């Protein structure tokens, strides 16, 4: 447990660039007009950037320090959980405290767009947190695979799905329903359940990828 905690600490500490970039964008991003984007949305950038550092920067270095693959992976998952909680808290705070005082008439926060705020603040925060965990775990798996042929195959399949499913109406509705389930879902228990289930499945896939990873 101590080793996992140490790995989490190191993973978060070496993720400074992501933190700094996210903070800069959140603070500096401006938009004008009657309808503007909430600055809280940009906190999601952290979730998008973090897996890149965990996978490409930290893995080999932690291994050279003597960490085990098991501790590294547990540390990554715990790190994603902690970051998702923090991002969710910050975005929820921005939504509650800063968005209302914005001079624009309409401020768009992704929590509203996804329909999560319909369930109250705590449920919305939880939905956002579990969704971000799903995003980070997905990226971890996808990025870990990039050194192998099956990573490229997965990229190809994902691009093919988007390219084929988008222009064909019946397939487009399948794609749309998928996003309705995992993202634009106002049913909090269902949404959290799906995010947890998919995150667990992807974590198992990520473990399989890690087991094949060489140094």
């Amino acid at each position, binding site marked *: 447990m101590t080793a996992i905690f*140490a790995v989490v600490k190191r993973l978060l500490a070496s993720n400074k660039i992501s933190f700094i970039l996210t903070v800069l964008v959140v603070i500096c991003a401006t938009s004008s007009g009657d309808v503007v984007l909430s600055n809280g949305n940009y906190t999601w950038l952290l979730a998008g950037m973090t897996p890149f550092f965990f996978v490409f920067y930290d893995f080999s270095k932690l291994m*050279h*320090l003597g960490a*085990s693959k098991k501790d590294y992976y547990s540390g990554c998952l715990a790190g994603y959980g902690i970051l998702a909680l923090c991002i969710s808290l910050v975005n929820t705070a921005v939504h509650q405290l800063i968005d209302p005082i914005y001079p624009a008439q309409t401020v768009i926060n992704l929590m509203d767009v996804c329909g999560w705020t319909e369930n109250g603040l705590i449920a919305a925060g939880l939905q956002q947190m579990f969704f971000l965990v799903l995003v980070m775990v997905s990226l971890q798996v996808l990025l870990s695979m990039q050194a192998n042929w099956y990573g490229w195959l997965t990229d190809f399949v994902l691009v093919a799905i988007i390219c084929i499913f988008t222009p064909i109406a019946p397939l487009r509705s399948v794609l749309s329903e998928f996003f309705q389930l995992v993202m634009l879902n106002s049913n909090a228990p269902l949404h959290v359940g799906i995010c947890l289930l998919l995150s667990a499945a992807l974590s198992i896939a990520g473990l399989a990828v890690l087991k094949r990873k060489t140094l």
Partner: protein
Amino acid sequence: MIDLRQVTKRYGQAAVLKNITISIDEPGIYCLLGRNGAGKTTLLKSIAGYQNITSGVIMVDGKQISTSTLDTGVSYIENFARHFNLPVGKLLKIASEVNPNYDYDFASEMMERFELDGKKKFNHLSLGMKTMVSTIICLASNKRVVLLDEPVLGFDAIMRVEFYNMLAESFQKHPRIIIVSTHIIEEIAKTIQKLIIIDRGSIRFFDTLQSVETKAFSISGLQKDVEAATQGLNVIGQDAVGGLVTSYIFDNPPGQTASLEIHQLPLQDFFIQIVGHKGGTTR
């Protein structure tokens, strides 16, 4: 305990490790010798579970080792290992936190002995100092098997002596299997117990250093005298200059006669004869 059974590793068509079977069951400092490209790093990385083998089985303390082993119990450090660009002191501290059995006192003591500036960042260190940091981390990990891949690369003579002392002290404190791959043969001879010679992916020699001292000899003289003296012995190489012949044996030496010169073979010469190459060609 390390057990390799018919281990083969191929990169495409090229076999880097060829059907290696070897069992290392006693704690000790083992020296892995081999020419460049002999397969030393591939062998060590395979034992550490850093890469998969093509066929065969590697077991460490009864646990099968491959990339899918999530906790191998093996500590491996390669030269040019990259670390977080943090002050050395902090790096050693982090290593102690991610390693449950890490000997932080040993690491700190070594840091002082090698005059490593704890506040200096890893990327600002010289090559030798970087290697030293990696080696300290590896030795202090206290894992049952420690693999050091060319640890003296970039060390000056004084650092090398200190390193051999550190190796011996670390082993005395925590007896375990330590395998050191190196090219500087004679220097490490005082520290090691057993010698493993690998050549072109095959293990050519695995025995104690004492056996080299008692069985490796050069026998020089006229061809007929040398041939008569070495008949039935394990001749590992031969040189001929004019009418004089020198045979190299790994066996009990023949009795000393006036027509023969019998000398103990230095470790480096023994290695050269075992590997059996001259100028990159096989004899």
